[in-house]
Structures are given as structure tokens and as C-alpha cells.
């Protein structure tokens, strides 16, 4: 059964009995919860578009494992063309949802785990890659969403995993059995965790010999015994409980993060892909981060398209679209947004095959891409707020518009260009608020800063990959200086 539809995906989640806490309560029916449902709708779009003829070229791929048509989110990249299509698909989905659609972390995890386990097997004589590919075949066949879980809670940041006062601050093995392992710990900031069918765990930092029990990669069903979720709050999230469609800004779609707790979870050996091989943990972290930094060139430019469109719409509604400074600001927004996209395309076009056959992006350009993403969406947001004006943050509630006494005043005094309705103006203002200050800003701004690694992580990689001695040599040569 490959290629689920959006509604089949939503129904498939109902079969999973997950333990989820939100707002101090255990949630039973999480699929229909008003705070959670928009994030499920965003994931569902990754399924829905795979059935639309005008998008199948981007949304589907031919599996390198089975030869069948699969959703691209479960595919191992087989060429630079695949890498480019990934970025284009992400841009499309960003445009359609205006938020994080949450399926990229698992996708990036597959491609990183595949090439690293292959290299581990070559060097160590293990059979992790065979296990992983069997697992991925199962994922492709059932068109599953897999949460790529990397970020540990990390405890005292001065100390390595094995030096922590609480040994559970990083996910680790607590017991080895003939049939599998038992793991404990937690993963933080887990995008789309609650909406996933499976969890693929990876180490969060390069491990040393003394941290071997933390050099761990495995997969478990998202409702495995001992797994529980504590749902993250988002700015303005309780507006989702008010029942309206205007004040939320983006009523249909949203992102999601949660803490996943692994409370002594059993993992059978066939689902263990790294267990103690600390020498390979760094490569896994680096590759996953590289793929995920590429991803942001696609998804954030897609969401950026929505914000550029919203700025243009509000300029028109407020009668300002012909003002030269407004036009200039919108062009500046486009320039920044397309720069992000260019980096995503560039690191894909410059990709290369790994020894497993799976293609890897150019790591330098992927890090440049992500470092730009830590900055440009903030500037694009500043410009959008500049164009929109202060009404975005002073606009009364949609309930006041419906009030028999207050409503007519708001309708009269908040009308701008008569060609557009007041409600139209409010809806666009709220969308800009959502993306730059509200629930959407979690994905568009803070996730752009810290997701796939904070800016310093990219700077370290850029410094490491830059080949400064070569640059120094060419400079010296032109300056007429001998060897330095």
C-alpha cells in the first residue's frame, strides 16, 4: 500500500494509541484536538499533493530499493536531480501550508543513516545497512511519516554525555539483551513527533569512547511501550480554542514540536542501526545536519513566498501598492527569499554520490544556506511588518467584529480601499501576525535560527570546510609574496 491520501494518513494516526500530554492533561483523541489538528493537516498535505498530477513529478520518486513509486519523503536520493527536486518539493509545500510540514526530519534521517551505516558495515563487518534498508522498505511500502529524532536534552552543556550527573540527559542503552536493547532518555524540540508513525533516533553530538553507550541509532513505532510525548506551546496557541478562523491567521495549517520521553523502551536488534560505534557518530550527525540545512533552502523559501504574497496583498488592500518605498521593500523581501532558495538549489546541484550510492549535498553550500536562513527570514519579517503597519498588533478580536454594538464601528473605521472588505484586511493582517509573531513564527523564525543547528554550528562547519590555506596561497601569489 504505497502513496496514502491525506485522509488515509489522518485515519492511520487514529490507529496509534500514543501517550500525549498537552496543557497539563493527558490527551485521548489527539487527531481532532484543535491545537494539534492544523499540524496534522500540514503533514497530510505531503500525502495529498502526491496524488495531484500537477505535482507528482516533485512529490513522488522511483524507489531505489523496490523500483516502485513512493512518496519522495521516503526516498534515498539517487542523483543531484533528486536533491534538487527535494528542495523544489519543499518550496511547494511551504507555499501550500505556510508552515513547517514536519516530514523532512525523517527524510533527512533516512539519507544520513543509509550512507553512514553502509560505511560502518564496510569498515566493521556489521550488517546495519541491510537492517536499515529492510526498515526503509517497510516505511516506503506503508508510506509512513518518521520523526527524525536527534536533539537530546543535553543537561549541563559543559559536560559530555557520560559525565552528566543524570545519565539520561542523552538517549542511551541501559540494557543489552539477546533479542534487542533497552533505551532511556529524551529528545527535545521534536518537530512533528506526535504526527509521526515511527521515530528514528540518531545521536546528537560526536561521541567519544567513554560515551559509547550514547552512540545510538534505532527506530521504534511512535506508540511503542514506554514512549510518551509532552506537547510544546506556541505563541498564541490558545487562539485555536476560540473557535474562529480569523484571529489564528492560518486556520488550516500549523507546525508542532514536542519532547519525546523514552522510558526504558525495548528495541529489537533488527531496528538498531548503531550501538556503540562511537567513531561513526560524528559522520551521522554531520550528514543529517547537512541534509537538514539544505531542506531549509526549500521550506523556508516556500513560507517566504506566502509572506511576500501577504505583504503585497496588504499593500493593495490598504492602497499602498504603488508607493515606491513599498515596492522597494517587497523587492527586497523577494531578493532575500530567492537567495535562500538559491543556496538550497546550489548545494543540491553540487551534490555527489556516497559509497552507498545515496547522494549527499555539498556540505559547505548547505551550511551557507542554513546560515542565511538564520538571518533572512527575520529581515523578511521586519519588512513585512513595515509594509503591514501597526494594525497587525492592535487589531481587535474577530468576536468584536461580530458584536452588535462594537462590530459596525470596526467595520466602518477599519475599512481601507473600498474595493476590499474589512474582513479581507483583517485576515491578511492576521496571517502576517501569525508568520512573524504568532504560531507561524515558531517555524518561520525561531526554527530558522535553531533548527538543524544554531548559527554557531554552521560557522564551525564553514570554518572547517573552507580550505583557508589554499585561499591564503592564491592571495600570496597575487601579492608577489613567497611561501608563507
Amino acid at each position, binding site marked *: 500500500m504505497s502513496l496514502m491520501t491525506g485522509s488515509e494518513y489522518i485515519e492511520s494516526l487514529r490507529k496509534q494509541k500514543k501517550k500525549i500530554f498537552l496543557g497539563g492533561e493527558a490527551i485521548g483523541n489527539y487527531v481532532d484536538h484543535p491545537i494539534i489538528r492544523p499540524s496534522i493537516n500540514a503533514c497530510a498535505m505531503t500525502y495529498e499533493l502526491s496524488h495531484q*498530477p*500537477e*505535482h*507528482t*513529478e*516533485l512529490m513522488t520518486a522511483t524507489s531505489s530499493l523496490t523500483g516502485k513509486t513512493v512518496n519522495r519523503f521516503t526516498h534515498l536520493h539517487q542523483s543531484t536531480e533528486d536533491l534538487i*527536486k527535494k528542495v*523544489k518539493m519543499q*518550496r*511547494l509545500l511551504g507555499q501550500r501550508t505556510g508552515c513547517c510540514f514536519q516530514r523532512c526530519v525523517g527524510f533527512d534521517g533516512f539519507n544520513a543513516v543509509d550512507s553512514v551505516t553502509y560505511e560502518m558495515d564496510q569498515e566493521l563487518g556489521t550488517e546495519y545497512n541491510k537492517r536499515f534498508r529492510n526498515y526503509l522498505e517497510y516505511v516506503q511500502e506503508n508510506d509512513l511519516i518518521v520523526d527524525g529524532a536527534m536533539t537530546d536534552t543535553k543537561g549541563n552543556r559543559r559536560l559530555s554525555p557520560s559525565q552528566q550527573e543524570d545519565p539520561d540527559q542523552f538517549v542511551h542503552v541501559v540494557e543489552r539483551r539477546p533479542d534487542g536493547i533497552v533505551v532511556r532518555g529524551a529528545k527535545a524540540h521534536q518537530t512533528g513527533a506526535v504526527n509521526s508513525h515511527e521515530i528514528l533516533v540518531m545521536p546528537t553530538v560526536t561521541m567519544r569512547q567513554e560515551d559509547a553507550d550514547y552512540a545510538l541509532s534505532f527506530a521504534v513505532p511512535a506508540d511503542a511501550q514506554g514512549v510518551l510525548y509532552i506537547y510544546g506551546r506556541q505563541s498564541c496557541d490558545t487562539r485555536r480554542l476560540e473557535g474562529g478562523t480569523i484571529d489564528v491567521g492560518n486556520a488550516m495549517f500549523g507546525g508542532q514540536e514536542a519532547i519525546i520521553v523514552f522510558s526504558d523502551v525495548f528495541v529489537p536488534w533488527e531496528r538498531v542501526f548503531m550501538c556503540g560505534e562511537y567513531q561513526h557518530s560524528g559522520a551521522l550527525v554531520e550528514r543529517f545536519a547537512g541534509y537538514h540545512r539544505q531542506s531549509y533552502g526549500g521550506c523556508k523559501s516556500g513560507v517566504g513566498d506566502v509572506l511576500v504574497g501577504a505583504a503585497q496583498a496588504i499593500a493593495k488592500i490598504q492602497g499602498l501598492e504603488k508607493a515606491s518605498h513599498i515596492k522597494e521593500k517587497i523587492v527586497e523581501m523577494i531578493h532575500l527569499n530567492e537567495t535562500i532558495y538559491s543556496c538550497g538549489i546550489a548545494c543540491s546541484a553540487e551534490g555527489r554520490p556516497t559509497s552507498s550510492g545515496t547522494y549527499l549535498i555539498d556540505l559547505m553550500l548547505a551550511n551557507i544556506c542554513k546560515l542565511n536562513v538564520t538571518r533572512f527570514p527575520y529581515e523578511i519579517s521586519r519588512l513585512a511588518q513595515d509594509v503591514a503597519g501597526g494594525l497587525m498588533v492592535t487589531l481587535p478580536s474577530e468576536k468584536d467584529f461580530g458584536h452588535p454594538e462594537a462590530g459596525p464601528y470596526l467595520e466602518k473605521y477599519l475599512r481601507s480601499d473600498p474595493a476590499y472588505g474589512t474582513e479581507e484586511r483583517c485576515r491578511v493582517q492576521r496571517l502576517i501576525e501569525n508568520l512573524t509573531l504568532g504560531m507561524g513564527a515558531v517555524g518561520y523564525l525561531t526554527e530558522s535560527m535553531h533548527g538543524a543547528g544554531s548559527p554557531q554550528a554552521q560557522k564551525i562547519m564553514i570554518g572547517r570546510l573552507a580550505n583557508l590555506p589554499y585561499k591564503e596561497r592564491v592571495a600570496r601569489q597575487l601579492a608577489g609574496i613567497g611561501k608563507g
Partner: protein
Amino acid sequence: MMKKKKVRYCGNCNPDEYPGDVKKRLEELFPGEAGPTILVDGCARACLSKKEKDTGAVVMSAREVMTRRKKR
């Protein structure tokens, strides 16, 4: 006998025209089940037709689909 009409799209990551509108317009331009194979590029980058060179298919851009007049 005329072959069954087939329409292929580039994927539409950032198209010049809204894909739903292009689809509707194509149905107006090429009504019925029979017809040529049509490759539709969403924008000037023309990813699909660049890849599928020399197939004998009709190549159109989304903008062209939207601006072309229906043949009488």
C-alpha cells in the same frame, strides 16, 4: 485513431500561474479524451521539457496555457 491525451506537469514548485487554473484552461483548450501528449512547464526554468527532449510532445509553459486563445 487518435491517441489518449496525456498531460504531464513539471511539479510546479514556484509556477507563474496557479496550477489549478492551468489545469482547467488546458481542459478547455484540449477537450475530450483523445489528444497529444502535453508537457507543461510551470515557469521559464522549463525543468520538464529540458529533461524530456525530443519526445514529440507538445510543450507549453503555464503562462502560455493561460494566454492562448481557444482554437475555433
